[in-house]
């Protein structure tokens, strides 16, 4: 009986099957059929139309982006104006999402807050991906001294006491949206590095890579053509997780006074404000709207990612 190691071997053709296990040879048609239904339970690769949810997701993302960009032009109330006769109100005609504990309009704060959070989130992830992701991709494949060095570098950032670094950077460099984005982006670099490196590592050992090497492909080609496509799903998943993480961490930084100056809103510091001072009991709306908005955004991006993944089915290279 074939042992596990042989089972791990990929790229075996039906021909090989037939050679080694007479009677088990499957026809090409059967293999294709099996490939589209590996566990025999559900057909996940049938080309469906994108679906109603897909368009909802796309719509939400567009809405958020547009509102964020056009915030100044939209007929919104001021996000920072405190109305002391309208404290902690629930949703009403005057304030569609209610007001916070200083009487500020929550809808407006949510939309203006999306600016900070989206910028910090997307650019932070972008920085992390561009630098950490690329480094991880290459490092996981190449190994050797490069890997050791990059690993050590990522450890220095990862294991460094974040609080010291943050306070120092903000004290000496100042807290502005740009600075915070860069700080969080740099903090994301080692995360991306480690996770994508792990994924790259796992694919680097596969037979198809070895085969490509044997066929004389350059490292660049292998990384780009063989490994990268396989690393993309995890990259997308982790990027989304990191996006959420950055938005939330910016809120924690706000609590420590290390983020953009008060009273500039952000989803992170709104969630924060919504849990401080017993606000969860007195006015759960403060926390609820940004958390909901973020949740919907994450869910939407994920859905789109999934659908696209299904459509442009990523497979590892075959012999």
């Amino acid at each position, binding site marked *: 009986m074939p042992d596990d190691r042989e089972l791990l071997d990929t790229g075996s053709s039906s021909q090989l099957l037939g050679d080694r296990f007479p009677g088990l040879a499957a026809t090409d048609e059967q293999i294709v059929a099996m490939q589209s239904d590996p566990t025999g339970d559900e057909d996940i690769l049938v080309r469906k139309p994108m679906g109603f949810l897909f368009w909802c997701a796309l719509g939400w993302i567009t809405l958020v982006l547009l509102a964020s960009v056009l915030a100044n032009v939209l007929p919104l109330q001021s996000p920072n104006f405190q109305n*002391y006769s309208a404290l902690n109100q629930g949703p009403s005609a005057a304030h569609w999402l209610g007001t916070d504990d*200083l009487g500020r309009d929550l809808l407006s704060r949510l939309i203006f807050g999306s600016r900070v959070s989206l910028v910090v989130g997307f650019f932070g992830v972008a920085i992390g991906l561009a630098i950490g992701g690329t480094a991880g991709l290459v490092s996981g494949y190449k190994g050797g001294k490069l890997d050791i060095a990059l690993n050590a570098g990522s450890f220095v950032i990862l294991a460094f006491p974040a609080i010291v670094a943050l306070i120092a950077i903000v*004290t000496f460099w100042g807290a502005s949206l740009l600075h915070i984005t860069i700080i969080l982006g740099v903090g994301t670099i080692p995360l991306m590095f480690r996770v994508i490196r792990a994924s790259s590592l796992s694919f680097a050992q596969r037979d198809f890579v070895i085969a490509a090497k044997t066929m004389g492909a350059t490292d660049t080609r292998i990384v780009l053509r063989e490994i990268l496509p396989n690393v993309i799903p995890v990259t997308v998943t982790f990027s989304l997780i990191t996006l959420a993480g950055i938005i939330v961490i910016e809120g924690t930084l706000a*609590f420590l*006074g290390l983020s953009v*100056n*008060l009273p500039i809103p952000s989803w992170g510091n709104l969630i924060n404000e919504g849990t*401080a*001072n017993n606000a969860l009991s007195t006015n759960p709306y403060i926390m609820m709207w940004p958390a909901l908005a973020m949740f919907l955004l994450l869910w939407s991006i994920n859905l789109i990612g999934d659908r696209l993944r299904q459509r442009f089915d990523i497979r590892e290279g075959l012999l």
Partner: protein
Amino acid sequence: MSESNEISRRIFLSRGAAAGGAVVLAGAAGSALAACSSSSTTGSSTTAATGSKPGVGTGTPVRGGSLTVGTTGDIDGFYPPANHWDSNGIIYANALYDPLCAIAADGSIQPYLCQSVTPNATFDSWTLTLRPGITFSDGSDLTSAVVVANFQALKASLLTGQALVQVTSATATDPMTVVFSLEAPNPRFPAGLTTQVGYVFGQAMIDAVKAGNSNPTPIGTGPFIFQSREPNNHFTVTRNPNYWRKGLPYLDQITYRPIPDTIQREATLKTGGVDMLQSSDPGTIKRFGGRSNYQVVDTRTGVLGEPTMAYIQLNTVVAPTNDLRVRQALAKGIDQAVIQRVFGGGYATPVNGVFLSDSQYYSPTSFPAFDPAGAKKLVAEYKAEHGTPSLQLLTITDPRLGQVVQIIQQMWSQVGFDVTIGQVEQATLATDFVSGKFQAATSAQFGAIDPDLNYVWWSTTTAKPVGSIALNFARNSDPVIEQNMLTGRHASDTATRVKAYQTVNQQLAKDLPYLWLGQYLFVEVATSRVQNFANPTLPSGAPQYPFDEGIFVPTQIWLSK
């Protein structure tokens, strides 16, 4: 979350040390045992549990039981010369030690651990007689030699030396008598013995420190004995069976648990994890007041002396706050009532100075009321000469303070200022205060049993230029204030003293180094089982000041069945 007002929260520069700091420098008037200020009687409350007054026990005291108290934070250590204690420090100290003197409910200073403390005719020599037969928790006797050794350790220490500058010597004339010699006459010397420097600790601690142990086990004469302590976790004491106040304490054990987050502390009370809690969040009053199974005591009334005040501190020597018109405009721009309503739960009332309306030193002042029109005019005037006044309002990284500075930012912006908010850590802000690198910042201070204790914050001698260490953070160098502080200190009759401090208060309202936001409230809440936590009595039987700015006395607490 309401954490960080607790992360390294102290009322900036502790009250206890400030008290110790200035009183013994003082030469304030009146006899040693005179009232420092008038007051109503025992600390008041919002709700009565079971028909009786909150914190006042009814029925026969029950012996035994273990009390758990949730405090706002931990302290650094138990050795008086090596720490300066904030209110938590004195709370802990009240369990382990006894002070030489204590404050009575009528505001007078009475002997506590000592039997008597009497001055000579010129008030520059004080004879202190100890009570006989008192032993420390390690069995050693309380003698004058120990008190003298205490004094020497405190005087030599960097942290407490300032408080004893004017005491030139302490001599043991016989085993039960100590004579303190002062540099200058000070009729109010015993008031200093109610503060950190008056808590008597055992010789063994001094010896241990000399031998290199910087964390000696606490040895005191107090109602309880040290059992165990884990920093940021708990501090446990057990009953002192040989306590010199016969029949006391009632409790077998107290465990103090520092719980930084206010809401979590309250949750711990509700779940029974603690029996009693301390809080400086007025919201606690709202959340527990009126509930029949809890007793609430707070400092809205019953404050002896000056309460701790919340205020905005202005730097009077840097632009634009060095311009009086700017300070006036800033003051007129603040609506205290709104701040107290939105931020303080509506419990405090607008103040015009450092004295509450029931204080003998209270008087009307020219502290500006809320007047946005007037503020705008002043700003316009300033703007014409110097351009739009812009300043940064600093605070620490605390969610509650973050709220109040946003309110103030809006108020000031509405009268024409350009205000940015800066949130910095406690250590940075403290340094900024001391070195003068700020324009406006939040602060809370000035709680003192006697106005003279605040000398160090208001004196011209402590107002150094920006860049030098100065305890008069606002650098408000006002000779009228200086003169009247000294008059008050040396005055031989109450009328002169009252007039002097009223003048100081009025000057502060004119100079405007501080923009008052209201009284900084302290609250304690206990379950209905906890009896008598706000009704201590002195050894003489007279009632003691029950809730001194967040400090309670554990000696006569009992737990009902």
